[in-house]
């Protein structure tokens, strides 16, 4: 009889084997193409942080001079998400740019309906990159799908000369250059890179909080080698994104068995086949999290994930499912920890699931905070002010 050594997964130590780990670095090909005059590479500006990716490649994360490639779903439906990202930049006095010369990546539509093609998708991406480059800033991508899709676009442009030629011609007709950033950087990577500085400025104790994490599929499944991993987080077997930040804030991050599952967004499903999104989100994510980890909040880092996990709980409640778990982004959690206003900055009234018990557990006077927000709204209604300013939000 053969006795094979048996060990529990939790006891195993996983180490990257340099002999078998893929070492391919797309930047080498980008710089080569630049030398050949095929494209121009936008360099990551100083100062930047260096972080480890899945197979050990070091990725540069710019800290400032960032051009904020906003997300249509975030800005449109959960705008406190992006507001919190900007608020964090302002708190640290970092130079950032919030452009109006920006379209969405249009990839939500592409994955939903296929009513586009690779040339159009690449041209939309490069038009946005060129707009960033023209004003001297580096693109920081807010949406997980834009991030994943732009990595796919970069990959295609590097490996398909004909696509490069077509996109270069289109850009020429728009009076633009074919420019590709040295790194495609997601905002949550910036939050991760800033986590020590965020923790230094933390004013709300979060050590009594348990959170679950949902990583966005298009962050760590598309071009997986470009996502952040760390030996300290899940033994580098899962992406360190979000978890690394929450742990720095003193939050207990609890595991659950469907961590790898998607949120149920489905691109076309969330818009025209929502029965799937609702069922998947409630039955495979929210219920499992509550059953196995009983968290106070679940934290994610993408547009569709926040929306689907949050909004689907309404139907779950109607069916007496175990739901009622607040959903927030890592940017909102980081801002909250640093004392941001839950309504003026985090804009939590755009979220659906009741988040008041969670805030009360943090010692936040929810009634008072809402009253402060209502004062602002009253001033807008009476015409005393046209808009709420950053100064109003920061007070």
């Amino acid at each position, binding site marked *: 009889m053969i006795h094979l050594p048996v060990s529990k997964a939790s006891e195993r130590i996983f180490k990257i084997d340099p002999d078998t780990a893929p070492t391919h670095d797309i930047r080498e090909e980008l710089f080569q193409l630049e030398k050949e005059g095929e494209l121009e590479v936008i360099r990551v500006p100083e100062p930047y942080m260096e972080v480890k990716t899945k197979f050990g490649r070091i990725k540069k994360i710019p800290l400032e001079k960032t051009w904020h490639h906003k997300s*249509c*779903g975030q800005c449109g*439906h959960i*705008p406190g998400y*992006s*507001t919190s990202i900007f608020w964090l930049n302002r708190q640290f006095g970092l130079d950032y740019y*919030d*452009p*109006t*010369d*920006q*379209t*969405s990546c*249009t990839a*939500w*539509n*592409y*994955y*939903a*309906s*296929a*009513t*586009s*093609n*690779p*040339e*159009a998708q690449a*041209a*939309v991406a490069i*038009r946005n990159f060129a*707009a960033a480059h023209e004003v001297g800033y580096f693109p920081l991508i807010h949406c997980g799908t834009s991030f994943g899709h732009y990595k796919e676009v970069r990959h295609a442009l590097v*490996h398909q000369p004909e*696509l490069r030629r077509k996109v270069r011609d*289109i850009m020429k*007709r*728009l009076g633009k250059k074919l420019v590709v950033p040295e790194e495609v950087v997601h905002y949550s990577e910036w939050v991760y890179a800033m986590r020590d500085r965020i923790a230094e400025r933390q004013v709300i104790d979060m050590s009594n909080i348990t959170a679950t994490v949902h990583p966005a*599929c298009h962050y760590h499944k*598309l071009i997986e080698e470009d996502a952040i991993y760390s030996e300290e987080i899940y033994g580098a077997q899962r992406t360190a994104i979000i978890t690394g930040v929450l742990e720095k804030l003193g939050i207990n991050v609890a595991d659950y068995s469907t961590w*790898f599952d*998607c949120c*149920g*967004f*489905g*691109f*076309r499903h969330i*818009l*025209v086949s929502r029965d*799937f999104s*609702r*069922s*998947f989100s409630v039955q495979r994510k929210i219920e499992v999290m509550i059953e196995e980890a009983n968290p106070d909040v679940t934290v994610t880092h993408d547009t569709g994930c926040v929306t689907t996990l949050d909004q689907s709980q*309404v139907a779950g409640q109607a069916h007496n499912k175990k739901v009622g778990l607040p959903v927030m982004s890592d940017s909102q959690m980081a801002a909250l920890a640093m004392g941001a206003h839950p309504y*003026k*900055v985090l*804009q939590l*009234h755009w979220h*659906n699931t009741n988040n008041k018990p969670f805030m009360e557990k943090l010692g936040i006077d929810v009634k008072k905070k809402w009253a402060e927000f209502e004062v*602002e709204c009253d001033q807008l209604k009476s015409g005393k002010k046209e808009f*709420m*300013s950053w100064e109003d939000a920061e007070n």
Partner: protein
Amino acid sequence: MVLDLSINKYSDVTYEEKERLFEEAKADDRWEHILYGCYECGICVAACPSARFYDFSPRLIAQAVAREDVDLVYTLMNDSIWDCSQCFSCDRCPRQNSPGQIITVLREVAVRNGLQTAKQALEGYGRIIYKIMSTGSQVSPDMLQPDAFPDWGKHVYEIAENLDIWRRALPPETLHTTETSWKVDDKTIIELYLIWHMTGVMDLIEGIDEGLFMILVDVMEERLEEAGYDVTFD
């Protein structure tokens, strides 16, 4: 719904036509990077969200295209691919296939060729295509209306009622909009329309929804003309 895989399902379509569509998929530049054969291990199915709720299998799709089963590929192109969530969890494939991207390519072929089932899959989706093509933004604040999201509960009523004030109560200056998710420059929209024009995307829309195509052409041609471009989409 149970997937009907019998060969009779699409016996009214000639083998040559089915083959033509399959060849179009295989001619895609991505094809050789997303299909390497299939072990039939089922890892993709284990990771797949759509497989849990539909009679749907990325393994079946990978197998059909790897075996070049023209009839089966045609059936799947009609009755299965639109169930995919495009999450790419199946990129875990040990054979380095990407069933999700195989599906992306098959969907593009279905749309390009105006398959009836593609039109059905996109029914009700036209207003979204209009939004993305005409504004460059997939969704907007003013889409948060109770009739559009009845299953999101009374919260949507609250947002719809307070939309204007709540948008103005956002500190970033770019977010005070309701028809688009942020303020977009005119020149940016013009450049986007020129991209749609140069890449032939509007031909796809015409094949899927002629009414929508005509509305979009009106909007785009007018704005392009105002900006000094003599461009037609016909």
